[in-house]
């Protein structure tokens, strides 16, 4: 684990922007879970409630043409990247106005306009593909960066290793962001992972690796700042291990019996959202009214998206013959 160099402090605007992304993630997640509970959406849903700080801080450094590859537990990453919510909702409802015409669903949302290039349900597979996007940026001579999101459990699969090594040898502008929520499905970190900090693996690829408090926007800011600067400056990849917790279990409906009530309660007590909000106000970066207004706007956006998504049509069965190849498969 390397020590972080000195990084500039985030500006008030940036802090508020990070908060905006966080609350947008949280309000959207809340609405999705309510809608599932009401039986108006059926899908496997992997809530990232509790992990908002990570992609919100990362996204504050990204431009629209910077790209991300994320995972089944990745709707927060997309929302943080400012993916529009209407096609998001239509997609998770399996409707034709969805980002993927309803064909991909919540585990395969794709929205190139906002840089959401791949969402995958296969553990570890965001990383090898992210390398390719980063390589394309290099070949283009651009300064674009690519972020690969993945979980702590994913750091034990072969694709992680091959990806970090290739990125290092080729000096790719890619950032490997591990959202370490302490569990891989029902398996506790230490029962699947042979090392105390995933960031220690970075040394095995000759790249810097940092373990960061993934619930602390300031700590995240410093780490992402360095990683993005390295990538844009042609210095190659960085591994960020961001420690966090998922409040809702692995998948919607999970009974959490593999964790103790206490540890869960303790984690939820440290919910970064209200704490960050309070601090923004206390430090004078935003006012109560501003943040209330922001939240109301976001709630309206979410509600509109939900209505839009659920009102959209289902795709025609002809879609089974489309997009398999560029040319339609004959009936």
């Amino acid at each position, binding site marked *: 684990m390397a020590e972080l160099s000195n990084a500039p402090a985030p500006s008030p605007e940036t802090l508020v922007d990070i908060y905006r992304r966080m609350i947008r993630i949280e309000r959207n997640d809340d609405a999705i879970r309510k809608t599932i509970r009401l039986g108006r959406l*059926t*899908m*496997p849903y992997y809530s990232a409630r509790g992990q908002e700080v990570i992609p919100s801080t990362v996204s504050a450094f990204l431009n629209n043409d910077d790209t991300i590859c994320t995972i089944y537990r990745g709707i927060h990453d997309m929302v943080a990247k400012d993916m529009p919510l209407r096609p998001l909702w239509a997609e998770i409802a*399996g*409707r034709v106005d969805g980002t*993927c*015409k*309803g*064909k*991909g*669903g*919540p*585990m*395969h949302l794709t929205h190139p306009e906002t840089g959401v290039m791949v969402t*995958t*349900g*296969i*553990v*570890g597979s965001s990383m090898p593909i992210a390398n390719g996007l980063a390589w394309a940026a290099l070949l283009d001579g651009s300064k674009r960066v690519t972020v690969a999101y993945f979980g702590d*459990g*994913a750091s*034990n*699969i*072969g*694709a992680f290793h091959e990806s970090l090594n290739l990125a290092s040898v080729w000096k790719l502008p890619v950032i490997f962001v591990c959202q370490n929520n302490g569990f*891989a*499905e*029902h*398996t506790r970190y230490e*029962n*699947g*992972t042979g090392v105390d900090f995933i960031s220690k693996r970075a040394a095995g690829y000759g790249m810097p690796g940092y373990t960061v408090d993934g619930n602390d926007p300031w700590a995240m800011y410093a780490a992402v700042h360095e990683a993005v600067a390295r990538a844009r400056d042609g210095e190659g990849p960085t591994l960020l291990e961001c420690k966090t917790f998922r409040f809702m279990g692995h998948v919607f409906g999970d009974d959490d*019996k*593999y964790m103790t009530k206490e540890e869960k309660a303790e984690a939820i007590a440290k919910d970064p959202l209200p704490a960050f909000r309070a601090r923004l106000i206390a430090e004078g970066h935003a006012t109560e009214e501003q943040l209330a207004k922001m939240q109301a706007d976001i709630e309206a956006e979410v509600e509109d998206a939900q209505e839009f998504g659920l009102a959209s049509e*289902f*795709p025609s*069965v002809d*879609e*089974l*013959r489309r997009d*398999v190849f560029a040319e339609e*498969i004959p009936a």
Partner: protein
Amino acid sequence: MSGKKMNALQAVNAALAKAMEQDPKVIVFGEDVADREGGGVTGATAGLSTRFGDDRVKSTPISEQAIIGAAIGAALGGYKPVAEIMLMNFTTVAMDMIFNHAAKLRFMSGGQSQVPITIRTLTGAGWQTAGQHADHLEGWFAHTAGIKVVAPSNPAEYYGLLLSCIQDPDPCIFIESAGTLFIPGEVPDDQAPIPLGKARVVQEGTDVTIVSWSSQLVRCQQALPALAEAGISVELVDLRTVSPWDKEAVLASAAKTGRVLIAHEAVRSFGPGAEIAATVNEELYGKLKAPVRRLGAPYSPVPFSKPLEDAYIVSPERVAEAVKGLMA
């Protein structure tokens, strides 16, 4: 004959317990399978680690290559490993271990190495898990020399076939499919191992033979009442073991009825049904009353949207329609 009503997952659980009880060399592992991790995400292994100990029932990291590698090595070391690959699509990350090693070591070693492993894996459309979680890949494994492919369709069959896979001296892939999982059925208390490579006649008939297995067999069964009503006498054959398959049983039934439909959930194109169709045609050339027909998934990844997923799956109605087509 007394028995217990249970679903397929409970049957898997019971069979694993039985196998572990009978043979101390049987070990069970995979992601989340131990009770500390909740006994498996579907509960198929619940209670086993508590009962047989944490040494014999182990949760693993998310490392499918390491899981199958450990299974192979433990088998070479004298054990009978039952490894779980949570979903069949994830066998692709371990495909080298399965294809180049597990299936080939006996041959490449001139018979010195045996690899009596069982790979349990779940798949199947119907749960809106979309493109990367629901493929039926039995055709790939059937095309692989050296591994047996088993695909049961009801609780008693799950129980009996899993016991046989575990006892078998060669690698077996045991496919648990969504459409079969939660239909309860009676498992006799003394349910014996069901021999691999032997088909089962689910219903006798004289007009048309349907050959199917796994979830698609359930949907074929659901088509039977309508076909009976239409006055068509259907012989429904559950292949059970896709490879090596029971050629004798299929050909006997086909010779009797003269009309054959093969139905599976896997993609139709270059799918496992083609082998059966090609063989029936070759062996019964000139003796059939109608062309052999095949039903399977369209040439498409599994879609998310419900109406698309419904259309992707071969419904009982389409089975019935195809059978009627054969009689026309």
